[in-house]
């Protein structure tokens, strides 16, 4: 198995750096061979730039992939959007020779060439396939006695024929990773539904996009959980910052803590909420933090 290079994207390093720290702390503690992919850019975002111009989208994605090809490492993404762009672009260029040649003509202008020699991984998919719930469980120092609402996010699962992670209708692998930490993954209506942020909808039609987030938040609130756990910083932002935006528009407060899986994993591995940047969320929930710090 090849080593990994960590692809940060935009939202993690520039809006939720706690997720970057949590990822780095967890990878190091679990002794996973991963270096930072220096000089990478926006993936570029699938909902925006794939919609605008396919060639520019492919060319920028190809440059990011090439940076990791030159290291001889697979790319590790921590964001569903980055995973969607890089995995799709990698597959499209591996499969379509004419398109690969077209993109490589652009890349020649910066002295690079896409070879198609690596794979794109998502941290949830990677942890489940390579370590499995039992393997993760062995690293747990602080079992988490909490109820979590898992949010898979669309692009981790779909298009399912390309992702190869099974049916998108009732997936279980992410729930299993959460339960491996001692937590309970709670079923709730519309569990696999979209958070509303993708496809450029949050950026251009924010109030519309928040109606989708509010729908999910109300379902999750009814289910009664301690936190939402996601696999994507853009879903994370939609649920965390989105709760404050919804409060401003509707007056309704949900006050549900939102954690990226790497932050939940970090808590179970023994790191403090502060080290994992959980306090940097918009939604501050002292009850949750105190429960973790006091060992429930």
């Amino acid at each position, binding site marked *: 198995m090849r080593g990994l290079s960590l692809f*940060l994207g*935009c*939202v993690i*390093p*520039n*809006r939720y*750096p*706690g997720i*970057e*720290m949590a990822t*780095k702390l967890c990878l190091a503690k679990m002794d996973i061979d991963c270096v930072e992919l*220096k*000089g*990478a*850019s*926006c993936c*570029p*975002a*699938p*909902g*925006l*730039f*794939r*919609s*605008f*111009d*396919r*060639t*520019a989208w492919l*060319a*920028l994605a190809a*440059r990011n992939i090439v940076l990791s090809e030159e290291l001889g490492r697979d790319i590790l993404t921590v964001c569903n959007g980055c995973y969607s762009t890089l995995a799709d672009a990698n597959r499209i260029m591996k499969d379509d020779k004419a398109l690969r040649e077209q993109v490589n003509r*652009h*890349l020649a*202008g*910066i002295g*690079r060439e896409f070879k198609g020699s690596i794979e794109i991984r998502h941290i949830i998919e990677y942890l489940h396939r390579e370590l499995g719930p039992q393997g993760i469980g062995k690293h747990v120092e602080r079992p988490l006695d909490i109820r979590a609402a898992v949010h898979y996010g*669309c*692009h981790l699962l*779909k*298009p399912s024929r390309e992702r190869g992670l099974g049916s*998108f209708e009732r997936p279980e692998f992410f729930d299993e990773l959460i339960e491996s930490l001692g937590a309970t993954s709670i079923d709730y209506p*519309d569990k696999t*539904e*979209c958070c*509303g942020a*993708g*496809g*450029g*909808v949050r*950026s*251009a*039609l924010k109030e*519309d*996009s928040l*109606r*989708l987030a509010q*729908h999910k938040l109300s379902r999750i609130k009814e289910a009664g959980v301690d936190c939402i756990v996601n696999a994507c910083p853009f879903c994370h932002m939609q649920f965390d910052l989105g709760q404050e935006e919804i409060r401003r528009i509707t007056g309704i407060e949900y006050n549900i803590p939102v954690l990226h899986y790497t932050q939940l994993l970090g808590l179970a591995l023994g790191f403090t909420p502060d080290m994992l*940047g959980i306090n*940097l969320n918009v939604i501050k929930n002292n009850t949750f933090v105190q429960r973790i710090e006091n060992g429930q």
Partner: protein
Amino acid sequence: MSEPTHDNTNLLNTMKAACRDTLRCMQCGVCSGSCPSGRHMAINIRRLVKKAARTVDVLKDEQLWMCTTCYNCQERCPRNIDIVEAVFSLRSIAVHEGIMLPEHGRVSGLLIRHGHAVPIDDERKKQRTELGLDEIPLTVQSCPEGLEEVRTLLKSCGFDRLTGDRDKSNAKTETA
């Protein structure tokens, strides 16, 4: 109104070539029944699919930008139509015709200037330092040669022309 005129025949041919798949649609409505945006917004994905390869009017339809690309419709389509791919194609054709939502033009400008759709701001620089991370992430943001490569590629693909000069006019709002 939806019949092709002399002027838009080429455009319609481009759309037909990109969305040929959608002609297999039998209008069963599984797509719109599965669409989370359709529950909360005006988008009717079944109608968009129906219009995709038939009329240039669809390019101006705001519904085209209400799709979150969640893929539910594509996953469940009994005719195996790649509906989200059709949405991407239609959006791209619209953008090449100069139709782009203002906020999307602004984000495109950020990509050209910073290599990121969401660039760093002062608040996060401080947070990063306090967490023990590099103040500026080790992406193109701390790598001028890398940023130059990104700009060269975008220019080589004609991306800067697509988004016009919107990147310059909105420079002040870049950290919003």
